[in-house]
């Protein structure tokens, strides 16, 4: 090795869910590290710290760091969610459901959507009537963010993470190598470390000192404002959240029994601005990790909350940080591989969100502009292959599975020109028989929140 030695001391900067999650994961999975959090309240534009809706991957994150459903659902009073209902994204088409899991079943090696196109489109059952239903569906959580942040903080303390409240005002960069030597806090204290993990939201207080290269997505994702407001919780909330298109963006509402929010996302260039709206500059840092400072969460990627990827991306970056931990030499080749993977993942999330707009069917000026953007080449490739014969190419580091792409594409009426020739080998009768095991449409099978919760708790009831 370079003789640099192991990384011993890590300082995480930030005080929100992202920072505490990073601290807990680092300390739990690499216990030899000395992990300190320089904590201050997260800024309002750190969406990963604020959004209550999360994806099923949150369960993997919890089990990787040794937290149970008892901790994260029961104690932290989280709700459950299995997907999103999209309303009015395509005028003249019904609402559609994007639920997490497999739609239908493949038959004889032929993908289900090919058979659906042949046997059910346009006069049979809608595609989302084959959406996964409990128990074959993936569950995300609806967080009670204050409690969840407290849980991660308590857990970090329990694992031996040291908290040092304080505002970072500057970072001292070392001599020729340009490494961060120490953080300067408002009270004059200096805090040194081998590695600095920046979870301070889009401003990236520390990481931004090492260069501000930014891959701007505002040309692709036109929304630049978010409003988040508290709402009255439902006693028995539905498992699906609603996301409805508006004239210049979209609105949502989601509720667990403990907490509810409603919000809107829109383009300020296409409609009235709103007081209290949070500005959003969508894009990602060109290199999230430079020298001994890595940006996590909104500090690395800022993206609108459509499809609720904010905390997912933070978790994924944390997982990658833990599994790719280099030594104190921070060899560029190792950082480059980390950055390559993070960027590929972020770009594919961008593609997935951009796809919602490009294939939407609405007529207002915002929607015309949003659907007329020139998609990035990876998305253009995906859409053109799909349009040809319903194929979806694999990309590295993809967050959303093929069936998620299908749910949105087919839900918005974006259809292939023809179907897979292999479908010939399966008769409609065979396809129907294979589906009979999954006959329960999601809408009918949807149990109440409590029913699912108890089923999931399996004896460890609240």
């Amino acid at each position, binding site marked *: 090795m370079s003789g640099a030695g*192991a990384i011993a001391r890590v300082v995480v900067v930030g005080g929100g869910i992202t920072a505490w999650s990073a601290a807990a994961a680092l300390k739990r999975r690499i216990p030899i590290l000395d992990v300190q959090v320089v904590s201050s309240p997260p800024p309002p534009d750190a969406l990963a710290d604020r959004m209550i809706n999360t994806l099923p991957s949150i369960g993997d994150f919890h089990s990787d760091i040794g937290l149970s459903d008892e901790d994260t659902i029961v104690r932290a009073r989280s709700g459950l969610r299995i997907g999103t209902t999209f309303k009015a994204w395509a005028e003249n088409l019904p609402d559609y459901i994007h639920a997490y899991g497999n739609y239908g079943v493949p038959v004889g090696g032929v993908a289900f959507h090919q058979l659906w196109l042949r046997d059910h489109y346009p006069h049979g059952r809608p595609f989302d009537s084959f959406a996964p239903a409990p128990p074959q569906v993936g569950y995300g959580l609806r967080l009670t963010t204050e409690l969840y942040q407290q849980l991660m903080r308590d857990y970090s303390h329990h694992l031996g993470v040291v908290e040092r409240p304080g505002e970072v005002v500057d970072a001292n960069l070392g001599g020729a190598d340009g490494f961060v030597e120490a953080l300067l806090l408002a009270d004059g204290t200096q805090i040194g470390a081998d590695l600095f993990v920046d979870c301070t939201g889009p401003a990236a207080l520390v990481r931004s000192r090492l260069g501000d290269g930014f891959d701007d997505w505002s040309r692709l994702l036109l929304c630049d404002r978010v409003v988040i407001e508290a709402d009255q919780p439902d006693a028995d909330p539905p498992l699906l959240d609603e996301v409805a298109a508006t004239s210049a963006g979209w609105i949502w509402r989601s509720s667990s029994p403990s907490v509810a929010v409603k919000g809107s996302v829109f383009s300020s260039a296409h409609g009235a601005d709103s007081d209290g709206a949070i500005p959003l500059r969508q894009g990602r840092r060109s290199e999230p990790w430079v020298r001994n400072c890595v940006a996590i969460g909104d500090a690395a990627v800022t993206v609108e909350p459509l499809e609720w990827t904010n905390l997912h991306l933070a978790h994924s970056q944390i997982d990658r940080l*833990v599994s790719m931990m280099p*030594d104190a030499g921070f060899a560029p*080749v190792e950082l480059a591989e980390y950055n390559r993977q993070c960027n590929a993942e972020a770009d594919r999330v961008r593609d997935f969100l951009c796809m919602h707009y490009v294939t939407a069917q609405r007529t207002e000026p915002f929607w015309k502009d949003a659907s007329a953007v020139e998609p990035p080449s990876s998305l253009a490739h995906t859409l*053109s292959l799909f349009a*040809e014969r319903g194929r979806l*190419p694999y990309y590295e580091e993809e967050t959303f599975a093929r069936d998620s792409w299908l749910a949105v594409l087919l839900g918005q009426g974006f259809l292939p020109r023809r179907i897979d020739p*292999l479908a010939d*080998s399966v008769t409609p009768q065979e396809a129907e028989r294979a589906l009979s095991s999954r006959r329960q449409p999601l809408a009918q099978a949807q149990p109440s929140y409590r029913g699912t919760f108890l089923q999931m708790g399996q004896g460890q009831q609240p």
Partner: protein
Amino acid sequence: MGDQPKLSVVVVGGGTAGWMAAAALTTLLPTRCSVTLIESEAIGIVGVGEATLPHIRGFNERLGINEAEFMAATRATFKLGIEFQGWGRIGDSYIHPFGTFGSGQGDIPFHQYWCRLRDQGAQVAPLGEYSMAVAMAYMNRFARPEPDPARIESTFNYAYQFDATLFAPFLRSIAERLGAVRIEGRIVEVQLNGESGDVAALLLEDGRSIGGDLFIDCSGFVSLVIGRALGEPFEDWSHWLPCDRAVAMPCRTETALTPYTSAIAMPAGWRWRIPLQHRTGNGYVYASNFISDDEARSALVGAVEGEGIAEPRVLKFTAGRRTRSWVRNCVAVGLASGFLEPLESTSIYLIQAAISALVELFPDGEISPLDRDEFNRLIDMEYDRIRDFLILHYHATERSDSPFWDYVRTMTVPDTLEEKIELFRRRGRVVKYREGVFLDASWVAVYMGQRIIPEGHDMRADLPPLDALALSADALRAEISAKAARMPDHRSHVEAYCPMAAAA
């Protein structure tokens, strides 16, 4: 949909590639195409790929082929991996197994724990001793993998070693039963449509003209349609893979019927040993810049284990591929599309990859440029990834005993490979790909087997207490060894399951 006229497919050449394509199309797309195959008995087949990768099992399953029948017909044996002798240094040996190291369970790859044990001074055995497939291979054992992932007997996969000259006739009987039409004849001209430039027809020596909608070029190295007629350029990779000849000679099997193929490094290349039921295949793959044909021939004859049963035969090739494998209405499959030496048994895999992509992107009526581009993207990716993996075998060496090894040890390798090697050398990281044919354990096997030993390890491997980790590694090694020892002998397994028919 479904009522359009069938596409008329003409397969050019009847070797392994040709008959694999014909059998796959007639089985999988019977309503979409009719298949005509032109071959000439006067032209020999190269018969590459006596050794295969586990993916071949998926191909056979899709075609509904009964394994025992197939193995008996092709005089096949089982294959658990490839043994490399003398690659890192003279005297070194390792197996690239079709399977994992360790139990395949847990958070991080087993080799990280292995590196930690080594770094902290604990006793560790060679990495291969913690692999079920490697243990079985060295003991000449074979049994089918168990389905339960919790069991160590589930951690391996297998392929076949078979006589490729018998595989084509076996597939031919399937394809012909399903309606493929075979035409005996020698192609003298490829006729192009004057307006579109597409292939219109093939003119045979006897004057017949065979037209079609889609031509599948399986003509081998001559690359009759895509290369000669359509002029698609060939990307030459011989600066990275300088071997350009092989001399092949089968012999009687004198030693064990090993459930693995051997690749033995030689002064100007390497030598294969592939044990079949009735004979052992041998060949010396060499670089003609570094050794003459005569020298190579005598080196091979001197090295084989048993009496030769045919005269040594020399083949010439160039490593590389056509820039595009699908051009106009011609899809090249197998050697017509490119060549990578059989060091990792990828020839048949590449044929299979092309056929799978073609089936998935099969045209109805007009050929869509989108489908064609996607096919080429997929095939390029396969070639490029295998290329890097093969280059690694040559480059990761300390040998300096001959000009050939000096060249490959010091040559510049593609950047993509340079970075991969560096990431492994530092901390044992394997760069993941989603669709590559060779998974992490394959890369680990070659790196470690050829002395690219990580200088550090993943910090997560430090989590378990050292004593406990050392004990569980010992227990795993003992379990693997005991389980392998109880499995049936490879030869008796083959003789009971799929004995070849008596020679005709």
